[in-house]
C-alpha cells in the first residue's frame, strides 16, 4: 500500500483538476466543504473556465473583468446564460456536449457580447443602484445576493420559450 493521499493536502493538484471542470461541476464542488468552497471561489479558476477555448484571450481583459466584478460573476451572469441560449439557438447536430461547448462557446463575437452585457450589468448594479433586479434575479443563480443579476440583464435569467 502506498501512503495515503488526501487531495485536501495537495491543493495544487486539486486546482489543476478543478481547472478542467465545467461550470456546473465547479458549482457542485463549491458545496463539498469549506476548503473546496474557498478554492472554487478563486477567480482564476473561473477565468480559465471562461477563456479556456479561446486562444489567445483578448489582451487587457483581465483588468477590465476584475474591475467589473470578476470572472466568477462574469460566468454566472453572462457566460453561462449566453452559452445555454446560443446552444439552443444553433442547430444541434450529433456532437457530444463537449464538442458543442467547444464549437458554440466562444467566438470573438460571443466574447464581445458577453463582456458588453457584463459592463452594462456593472453600470446598472453599482452605479444606477441595481434597478431592483438584484433580489428578483438572484435566486436562479443560487450564489446568493452577490450573483443576482440586474434588471437590464433579467432577460438572461428568464426561462427561454423553446
Amino acid at each position, binding site marked *: 500500500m502506498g501512503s495515503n493521499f488526501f487531495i485536501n493536502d495537495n491543493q495544487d493538484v486539486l486546482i489543476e483538476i478543478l481547472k478542467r471542470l465545467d461550470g456546473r461541476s465547479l458549482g457542485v464542488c463549491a458545496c463539498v466543504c469549506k476548503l473546496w468552497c474557498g478554492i472554487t471561489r478563486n477567480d482564476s479558476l473561473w477565468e480559465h473556465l471562461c477563456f479556456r477555448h479561446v486562444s489567445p484571450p*483578448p*489582451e*487587457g*481583459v483581465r*483588468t*477590465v473583468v476584475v*474591475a*467589473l466584478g470578476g470572472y466568477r460573476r462574469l460566468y454566472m451572469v453572462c457566460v453561462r*446564460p*449566453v452559452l445555454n*441560449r*446560443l446552444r439552443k*439557438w444553433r442547430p444541434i447536430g450529433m456532437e457530444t456536449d463537449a464538442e458543442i461547448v467547444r464549437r458554440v462557446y466562444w467566438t470573438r*463575437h*460571443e466574447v*464581445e*457580447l458577453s*463582456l*458588453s*452585457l*457584463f*459592463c*452594462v450589468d*456593472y*453600470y*446598472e448594479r453599482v*452605479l*444606477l443602484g441595481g*434597478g*431592483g*433586479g438584484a433580489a*428578483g*434575479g438572484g435566486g436562479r443563480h443560487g450564489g446568493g445576493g452577490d450573483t443576482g443579476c440586474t*434588471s*437590464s440583464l*433579467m*432577460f*438572461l435569467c*428568464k*426561462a*427561454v*420559450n*423553446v
Partner: protein
Amino acid sequence: MKRDRDREKGSSSKGKNWASVEEEEQPDAGMDELLAVLGYKVKSSDMAEVAQKLEQLEMAMGTSMEDGISHLSTDTVHKNPSDLSGWVQSMLSELNSTSISSNFGMSSSENQLIVSGDGGGGSCSSIIDFSRGNEEKKTTTAISDDDLRAIPGGAVFSSGRNRNEVDEESNKRQRSSFCSSGGSNSSSGGNSLTDSARPVVLVDSQETGVRLVHTLMACAEAVQQENFNLADALVRHIGVLAVSQSGAMRKVATYFAEALARRIYKIHPQDSIESSYNDVLQMHFYETCPYLKFAHFTANQAILEAFTNCNKVHVVDFSLKQGMQWPALMQALALRPGGPPAFRLTGIGPPQPDNTDTLQQVGWKLAQLADTIGVEFEFRGFVANSLADLDASMLDIRPSETEAVAVNSVFELHRLLARQGAIEKVLDSIRQMNPKIVTLVEQEANHNAGVFIDRFNEALHYYSTMFDSLESSSSSHNGITQSPVTNQDLLMSEIYLGRQICNVVAYEGSDRVERHESLGQWRARLSSAGFDPVHLGSNAFKQASMLLALFAGGDGYRVDENDGCLMLGWHTRPLIATSAWQIAAEDDGAGEVELH
C-alpha cells in the same frame, strides 16, 4: 392585431365543446372535414355561400349588441348544430322579414350561435363579425348610443380591397401567432380550420378582435370627418369590446381608445411630461424588450468601427437619458487592440422640472465606470429644450485632426419634425461638427402623414405589433412564476408605449412630437442634407442576431439588413431601424466607407 394564445385556446376549447357533443358523428363524404371536427356539416361546395350568409346574419345581430343581447347567450339553445347552412338560412329569412332595428327582433327561443370561450376570465364570445356587404354606405343621421348601424360602411370592409387586406392581415396574424405559439398546445384543429377557411372567411373566435379593429377604424374615420357625436358613441363601444379581449389586443385597444377619446373631447392634460418619469419608463422598456438594446449595440458597433485608429474620440449624444448606451462602448474601447482612446462624451437632455442636474449625475456615473475600466473620460452636459436650440459652436468641437467626432441620435430626431425648419437646422449643425459618423436609430413607421386616418391606421398596426412582441417576450410558457419586477417592467413599458400612442393620435401641431418616419424617408432627408450612407457591417449584424437570440421569445424577433441599415422587427414587421451616415464627399473621390 393578432389572435393571441388565449383566444387560440378559446377556439380550441370551443372545438372541444362541439366535438364532444357531436363526437358520434363522422365526417361524411362531401362535407367539409374540418368543420365536421367542430360538429358542423357543411358541404365544401356550399362553404362560400354559408360564409356570406353568416356575414349578413352577424351584422344584423351585431347592431343591437348593446341592447341586452346577452340574454341570448344564456337562454338560447342551438337546436341542430350540424346543419349550419339550413340554420343560417332560416335566421336570415327571419331577419330579412323584419327591418333591422335596435330592438333586436329575435326572441330568446331562436337558435343562436354563441359559444363562449374558456370559462375563466373574460368572456370571449365568438360572434362572427363581417361586413354588411350588401348594404349601402350609410350616412349618419340621428345617433344614439345603441344605434350602431352608424358604423360607416366605408370603414368596415367597404371595398374588396379592404376586406382582403384585413383578411390577409388576420391570416398573417394567425400564421404568425401559429409560429410563435410553438410551445403552447393550441389545438391544431382550430388552426388548420382557419387555414382551410382562409380564402373565404374567418370562422373562428377571432371575430371579436376583428370587430374591435373595425370599430377603432370607424371611430378614427368619424374623427377624421369631424363627426364627433358618432365618434363618441364608437369610442364607448370600443371600451365594451376591448374588455372582452385579452392580452395584447386589449391593451392596444384600450390605449387607442383613450387617445381617441382625448382627441374627441380635446382633453390635453397639461402635459409637463416629466422627463425623469419618462426616463424611468424608458428604463423599463429597455429591460423588457430588445429594441433599445439593439439600437445601442448596433450604433455602438458603427461608432466603434469608425473610431479605429483614432486616439481621441468625442461622442455627441442627442438624448443622454440614463446613459445606458455608453458603458458597452467604453468597454469595447477599453479592450480594443492598442488600448483605449481618450473618450469624451457630450450629453444633451431636456430641462428637469425640479432643477436637478441629471445630466451631470449620469456623467459622473459614467466617469466612475470609465475610471474602473481604465478609459480616459471627459463629460459635458447640455440642457436644451430642443436640439434646434444648439449649434455646433456651443459643443466645443475640437479640430478633426486631433479628435474624431461621432453623433448619436436614438429616437430623438423625429421630434424636430414638429417645428418648421428645425430638422434642417439640426442637420446643418451636425454637418458643422464634421463628424466621422452619424448614427441614427428611429422607429420604422410613418406616423407623420398629414391625413389623420392614415396616421391612425399605421399607428394601430405598428403598436399592435409592438405590444404583441412585449406580450410574448415576457409571458412564460412553462409555468415558472414571474417575479413581480417583470410584471412591473411590462406594465411600465406599456405605459411608455401608451404615451407615444396618445401623442400620435391625440395631439396636433407642435405638441405632436412623436412624428416617426420610415427609413426611406430618413434616407431621403439625410441625403438631401448632404450625408452619405455608411453600411453597417457584418459584425453589427452578427452581434444583433446574437443579442436577439438571447431574448426569450427570441423566435419572433428578426434582424434584417436593408441596404446597409439594420432593422429589428417582430415577425414580418420591421419596427426600428439603425442607420449610419457620414458627410457626403465634396469631390468625386472618397466614396463610401465600407465597415467590415
